[in-house]
């Protein structure tokens, strides 16, 4: 899987570096001073690199835990995210990472303690309150877990810090490390889900929706809190039938009482990232629209977005209570909240 491993000189002797490089005895190891020398040069093509991404082992400097973007939250007041890894082993055509980074290599920061210290500092800032930390913003939280072992160490840390609430967002079925431990009440394993046929076209190298659902069901059965992430919701002429079917399948498999939260988010991508991905994949039907440019983002038209979100929200209410449903973009949140006010339903908690 990994043919090349770039190792920063600063972490060459680190135990985790030795463990990770040891998993790929046939890989060529190349040392470098800073990972940016490999990751940032202009002359790189994300699409080509996705054919054979390298692993980069690096040391994280500076801030590790950052405020979550507006609209990113599942009910908590204090929301932060962290990325112990940059890039994802999957290749989803709608993913913003392919427009954000020049390189498709996987960067793993091996000094995990720095992330735990960063989270501890935020807990200290919000004394006595729960603080949410989101993992899986710049990578898949679990997909490379057999190599990195990050989540295993994170869970140990979380046992000692019950005020830290963590969402591990994933599409992976690599859940062994979760099965090996007692479920933690302050962890939500959140699965991103797309209608199966759409996933087959757009989510390359990703476990099928069926396999994800099987992993979700087993996690729920073992007592883990699970999250359902319908983000991005993608427009197709027959999106209603596709999402209706998806929701049926999901709620048929996952018991209601283990569902911590459900999020809905329309497709949106910052304009420069969208420009980059359409250059990489000019023949991709997804990028042919119908989109418009709004607030520096490329997204569906207000009407289209409103219709889709309203439809999906209505459908979700058939299976779960409104207080578990959150939306991921400010405009959609307003749209759905307004609609709920109008319909005299319980408001969506997403502040």
């Amino acid at each position, binding site marked *: *899987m990994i*043919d*090349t491993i*770039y190792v920063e000189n600063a972490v060459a002797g680190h135990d985790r570096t030795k463990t990770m490089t040891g998993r790929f005895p046939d890989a*060529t190891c*190349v*040392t*470098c*001073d800073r990972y940016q*020398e*490999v990751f940032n*040069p202009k*002359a*790189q*093509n994300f*699409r*080509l*690199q996705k*054919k*054979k991404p*390298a692993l980069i082992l690096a040391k994280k400097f500076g801030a590790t835990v950052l405020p979550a973007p507006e609209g990113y939250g599942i009910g908590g007041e204090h929301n932060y995210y962290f990325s112990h890894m940059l890039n994802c*082993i*999957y290749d989803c055509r709608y993913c913003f990472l392919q427009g954000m980074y020049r*390189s498709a*290599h996987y960067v793993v920061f091996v000094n995990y303690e720095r992330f735990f210290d960063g989270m501890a500092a935020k807990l200290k800032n919000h004394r006595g309150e729960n603080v949410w930390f989101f993992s899986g913003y710049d990578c898949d939280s679990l*997909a*490379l*877990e*057999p*190599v990195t072992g990050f989540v295993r160490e994170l869970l140990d840390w979380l046992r000692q810090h019950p005020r830290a609430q963590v969402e591990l967002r994933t599409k*992976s*079925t*690599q859940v062994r490390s979760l099965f090996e431990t007692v479920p933690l009440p302050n962890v939500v394993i959140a699965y991103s889900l797309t*209608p199966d*046929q*759409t996933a*087959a*076209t*757009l989510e*390359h*190298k*990703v*476990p*099928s929706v069926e*396999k994800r659902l099987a992993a979700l069901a087993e996690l729920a059965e073992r007592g883990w809190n699970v999250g359902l992430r319908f983000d991005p919701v*993608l*427009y*197709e*002429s*027959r999106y209603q039938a*596709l999402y209706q079917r998806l929701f049926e399948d999901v709620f048929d498999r996952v018991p209601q009482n283990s569902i911590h939260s459900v999020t809905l988010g329309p497709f949106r991508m910052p304009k420069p990232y969208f420009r980059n991905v359409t250059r990489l994949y*000019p*023949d*991709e*039907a*997804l*990028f*042919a*629209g*119908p989109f418009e440019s709004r607030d520096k983002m490329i997204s569906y038209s207000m009407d289209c977005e409103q219709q889709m979100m309203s439809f999906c929200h209505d459908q979700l209410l058939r299976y779960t209570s409104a207080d578990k449903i959150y939306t991921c973009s400010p405009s959609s949140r307003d749209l759905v909240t307004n609609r709920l006010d109008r319909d005299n339903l319980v408001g969506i908690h997403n502040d």
Partner: protein
Amino acid sequence: MTNLVVALQAEARPIIEAFDLVQDRPAGMFPVYCNGDLSLVVSGIGRACCAAAVIHLFHRTAQRADQAWLNIGIAGHQQVPIGSVLLASRITERASGRCWYPPYVLDIELLRSPVVTVDEPERCYPQCCAYDMEASSFYQIASRCSTGELVQSLKIISDNPGSNLDFTANQISQLLADQMSAIESVVGQLSDLSRVLDTVRVPPDLSSLYLEQWHFTVAQRHQLAALLNRLKARSIQLPAVPGTSEYQDASGVLTWLEGKLLAIPVNLSVPQGEDAADRVEQPS
């Protein structure tokens, strides 16, 4: 298009023979040999000559972005046996201390090693690296013409500590000739990769059919290209070009194309099973 850059005529000879390359006339500043989509330039020894030869070849050939570029030549190595072939995993320029890391996406089982580019032949071999005299300037300039994945440096080991550095032309040619299958594999894969980037563009004849019939401003040309691209991504067949009697001007044509695009149902899905091979989780 694939471009090969070698320093010596003796290095070029077996490659010219293997690929049936013919010298391009009239000869320019550097000898260039071509055969269809493959070109080779003989740069002469050293960083400056190599950089100049890359630029020369770029201007001499199609001047298109994202062509494949391969530097082939002999190098010394502290440990790797004479006659071995390797690809550069990191290129360090001794004079400046700068490093480059050619991204590797080829499917070839070849040894990969750091390469240090020096200005004088290296006789001490202080590190476990290959030593050459062109790779750094080759990569620095060629990666301005193309993406790094398509720019690689392949070295055949000619000397180790204690070796005699007075090679005859025949000895050099023989070293290259003995590794021709590896060279052909790398050239073949780089060519395939560059074709991946030869992205699906709007068929030029179709775009030109519109441009011939109506006057498009520069902005309208961009809109036309974008619309045709989107239509092509959405449907198997592009609509037939309407007659000039139907649409008086470019703006009418653009509106017509927008209508066509809107009328096509959005279908992102494919029937189950078509992409099945792609759907296995990557082992880690």
